[in-house]
């Protein structure tokens, strides 16, 4: 009995260490990534630079939807990478979140515009419907279905590890 007890004292911490080592070093361990497929909810929003209305069918078949705002500091950091994606031919549409149109347009003029166009979600209604908790967040959308929902800054590592496998699998952006 005593030996059995000693054995357990040794084995329990080892199992614990292995368990956490396994989780924390896992390649796919990105807490911000969500791969649940949902349809883009019905929306009707004005554009940021134009007064025209946008609805679901105006979205491109293969696109990124990037939630951003001029008050969002991480968006400023993410901005450079979005410029790079745009130059590589990835369609990035902006969802301007809880922002004043003038502030947002100034921000784009100042730093450059990586978006093909912007939706202006002044009240955050579409964002709430899509499960956005803040900015920046990025959605990979194909034919009106969300394939990846990433909360947080997208950079080269996140792009390679989280987005590229799904993009290759679905043969997007060719």
């Amino acid at each position, binding site marked *: 009995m005593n030996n059995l007890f000693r054995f357990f004292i040794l084995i329990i911490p080892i199992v614990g260490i292995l368990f956490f080592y396994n989780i924390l070093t896992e390649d796919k361990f990105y807490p911000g990534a969500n791969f649940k497929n949902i349809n883009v909810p019905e929306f009707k929003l004005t554009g940021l630079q134009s007064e025209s209305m946008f609805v679901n069918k105006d979205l491109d078949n293969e696109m990124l939807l990037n939630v951003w705002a001029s008050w969002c500091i991480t968006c400023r950091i993410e901005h450079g990478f979005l410029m790079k994606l745009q130059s590589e031919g990835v369609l990035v549409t902006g969802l301007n979140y809880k922002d004043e149109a003038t502030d947002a347009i100034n921000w784009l003029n100042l730093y450059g515009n990586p978006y093909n166009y912007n939706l202006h979600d002044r009240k*955050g*209604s579409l964002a*709430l419907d899509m*499960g956005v908790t*803040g900015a920046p967040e990025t959605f990979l959308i194909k034919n009106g279905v969300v394939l990846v929902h990433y909360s947080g800054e997208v950079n080269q590592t996140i792009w390679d590890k989280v987005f590229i496998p799904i993009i290759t699998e679905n043969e997007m952006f060719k």
Partner: protein
Amino acid sequence: MKKIILLNFLFLSSVSFTSEVYIFESNVDEQRFYKLIHEVRCPKCTSGSIASSNAPVSEDLKIKIAELINEGYSDKEIKDYAKARFGNEVLYDPEINRSTYFLWFGPFFFLAVVLLGFTFRRKIG
């Protein structure tokens, strides 16, 4: 005169601090609202219900819940709305289903194991 002006500031301050007024058709609906916002976790905070949070997403969620109540949604439908968007962890009381059996009944299982262990050890000793 100066005192009256200052007094006015005092009375007006409460008005300007009111962030959102929720309007319901009945008292029952209002009670449901206050019960629900205590059961839904703020998706952006470490821990706290949306009732206790003034994060933008919590404010939006509260407005949305009030809207859904007025549109006649049931409590379950509203919880499902939040769950579909922000995951299972948005509900404070996890539902009992296959993936949460361990969470609900695990502690009783461990208690049983320990109690059995104790009786077993007495017999050996």
